[in-house]
């Protein structure tokens, strides 16, 4: 078990998840978001390589363009 903060909320996770895995588990379409991981912005191509660890911080921001 390990703790990750996602969008300001603490979550307890069991399995090792990459950023991409996490998004899929949360039913977030990776095509419509940008992600900040530990205050860095990894390229989308790395999302399936970066494994979440205890204490990590994720901010997921949707692409919003309507007006």
């Amino acid at each position: 078990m390990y703790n990750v903060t996602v969008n300001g909320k603490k979550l307890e996770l069991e399995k090792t998840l990459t950023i991409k895995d996490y998004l899929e588990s949360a039913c977030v379409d990776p095509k419509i978001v940008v992600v900040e991981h530990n205050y860095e912005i990894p390229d989308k191509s790395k999302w399936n390589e970066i494994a979440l660890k205890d204490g990590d911080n994720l901010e997921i921001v949707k692409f919003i363009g309507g007006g």
Partner: protein
Amino acid sequence: MMNKANTNSENAKSEYANSENINSENINSEYEFHEGLRYSRQIILDGFGAEGQAMLKKAKILVAGSGGLGSPALLYLAAAGVGNIGLVDFDTVTSSNLNRQILHFTSDLGRRKTDSAEEKLNKLNPEVKVIKHNARIDIDNVEDIISGYDVVIDATDNFTARYLISDCCYFMKKPLVEGAAVGLDGILMTIIPDKTPCYRCLYPYPPEDGVLPTCSDVGILGAVTGVIGSMQALEAIKLVVGIGQNVTSRILAFDALASSFREVKWSKRESCPLCGKEPKITELVQYEIKCRIKGLD
């Protein structure tokens, strides 16, 4: 020859004189007094003052889009006395606009949004000059349009325009207030070129074709665009007057259901294709991005 702002102002002065039985010889000083009354509630704010009001009067602010975001933004800029307000829109008023595009009324159906907006803004405040740009923002006109303004508010509804506006503002070093809303979500950030993260620090490249929902897919509540659009006006006013803190180097993400704002700190990206160490975007790009489903508007 009087321009339209002067004509509106003179008409308003005459109406005021008649309503108050004021001697026409005294009208100018009386009207200035009345104008001072109009802004009295903001002039007395700490840090604002007559100086701040004078700055607003001289300011030139462009609002790209006069729809859901643009309507409240334009109304509040006019109410505050921003002297020169540009508005860009190519569209006409349709029924499904009316739940949120509060500058436009039922009686405006079929009318150009720029004309509808101009009429309401002049009625609200005849002292401001409204400059209409009846056009769809594209790669050929965006520089000319933006060049005449100090600050730009992006109230458009598509990424093609957003990337043109944000890149152009970066190249021309114009502060930009980005806002967007769809469904029950909104987002707000202010960009000062080279000092703060730019639009592409957040969204380096547009989303893939056909993946994004539009307001006609997922819906939009007027009060949500009202929140973001009003805050865009507030950001622009603060930039001009030089008070408070702008939403720079951070994003405000609005959750309308929870009525909460989440602040996300966002830094300049070294790898940003526009403002990063090795820029890849060195000239304007017009992306053709289709939304998921083409709805009624």
